[in-house]
């Protein structure tokens, strides 16, 4: 068990390798109840949501969601979130480590007529991820889970528990996330384990959650981005919708050149099994040109992988990572490192 954002969470239930490969080939079950859930309701809810995030949530129909960043006035990233349009407003899912900061930020930026409610403590989140995930959830669900589009969600009953059922995740696989009342999470977990175990599903801890999201090129707040990083530098320009109207940070973002960010967020594939880790130096020859933000072992790939910030004008020279004094050669590769096979 490890401490994570104030929660005691398992690094692994069995083996990080086994858990990682289960998600890639079958399914994995995650307890993500540490994530924060914030509700916006009232006639000002849409204006508040639009003013808080850089992505366009105004056109979202009920049951749809987007990935978005919350920026400060300098375009630094306050958090990365999922914004759901729900029947009576918006549900914003935030990082546990940023919950207190986010709440303060959101309360300072409420449009008139908005009711904000922090539902984090009363809300549990279980995720089933992997090629078998939809079938596993479907087998105990009272709604048509397979009909949900990617980033679509609906309310329904799963194994007797009322849930928001969402086709989202943080692994690079198809999958389902289930938001429910915290009291109902243990029986829901048990029912999902019972349904998933015969299909090879394993419970998955934080270790494999990190290797899975890294392979999938998904950023981790606090490592890959923080309030000093703008979304263009982080490769998240695709989530910035300057045409939608005013939002916090828009003024600064308009003055930045999306094509020429101050830093460039790149992927590095190592030629060896060594593991690059957060904070290690990225080398071009003997020169230090950047720093690893996230690193790990790509269990689906068989070698070490890392993301890093380097200068935007870095020449296309051979790179390396300084791993305990050894310059381990690394190849610059496009993100994501891993893309799931398309269904036939």
């Amino acid at each position, binding site marked *: 068990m490890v401490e994570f954002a104030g929660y005691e969470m398992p690094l*692994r239930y069995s083996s*990080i*390798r086994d858990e990682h490969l289960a998600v890639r080939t079958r399914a994995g079950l995650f307890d993500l109840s540490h994530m924060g859930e914030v509700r916006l309701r009232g006639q000002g809810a849409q204006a508040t949501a639009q003013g808080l995030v850089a992505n366009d949530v105004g056109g979202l129909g009920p049951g749809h969601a987007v990935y978005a960043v919350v920026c400060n006035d300098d375009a630094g990233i306050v958090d990365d979130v999922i914004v759901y349009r729900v029947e009576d407003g918006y549900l914003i899912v935030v990082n546990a480590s940023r919950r207190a900061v986010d709440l303060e930020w959101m309360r300072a930026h409420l449009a008139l007529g908005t009711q904000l409610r922090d539902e984090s403590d009363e809300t549990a989140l279980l995720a089933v991820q992997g090629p078998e995930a939809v079938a596993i959830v479907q087998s105990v669900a009272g709604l048509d889970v397979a009909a949900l589009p990617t980033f679509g969600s609906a309310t329904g009953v799963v194994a007797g528990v009322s849930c928001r059922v969402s086709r989202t995740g943080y692994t690079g696989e198809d999958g389902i996330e289930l938001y429910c009342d915290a009291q109902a999470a243990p029986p829901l977990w048990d029912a999902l384990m019972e349904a998933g175990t015969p299909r090879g599903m394993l419970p998955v801890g934080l*270790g494999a959650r990190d*290797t899975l999201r890294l392979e999938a090129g998904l950023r981790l707040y606090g490592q890959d981005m923080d309030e000093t990083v703008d979304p263009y530098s982080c490769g998240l320009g695709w989530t910035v919708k300057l045409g939608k109207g005013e939002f916090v940070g828009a003024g600064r973002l308009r003055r930045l050149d999306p094509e020429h960010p101050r830093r460039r967020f790149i992927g590095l594939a190592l030629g*060896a*099994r*060594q*593991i690059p880790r957060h904070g290690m130096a990225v080398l071009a020859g003997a020169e230090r040109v950047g720093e690893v933000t996230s690193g*790990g072992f790509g269990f689906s790939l068989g070698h070490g992988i890392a993301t890093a910030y380097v200068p935007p004008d870095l020449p296309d020279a051979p790179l390396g990572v300084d791993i305990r004094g050894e310059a381990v050669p690394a190849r610059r590769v496009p993100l994501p490192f891993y893309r799931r096979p398309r269904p036939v």
Partner: protein
Amino acid sequence: MPDLSGYRFTLTHEWVHRDGDAATIGISDHAQAQLGDVIFLDLPSVGAKLTAGERFGTVESVKAASDLYAPVTGTVSAVNEELATTPERVNSSPYEEGWLLRLANVSEGEVALLDEASYLARADE
């Protein structure tokens, strides 16, 4: 689990199995369990000299990279080459298939070598 009566352990979690003036060394079952999946081992080559108590390599898991310390003094006579491609043998068979090095001309140094029971009693200190 094999018979460990011939194995001696260090408080830095290596084991040594003596056979006359030769020896085999590895890491303990307790150590592999704490590390989790072993991904990479940085080991010396045949001919390298190890000195009891001194660092000779690194074992890396997803969780952390840890230094390896020589339980005895000796010269590397063989390296477990299988571990380059299947380091998980250290997890699945720490005392047999997951051995790290074989040494020749072995002598004991200043390092305390404990039997399994004494080692386990002190392993979590």
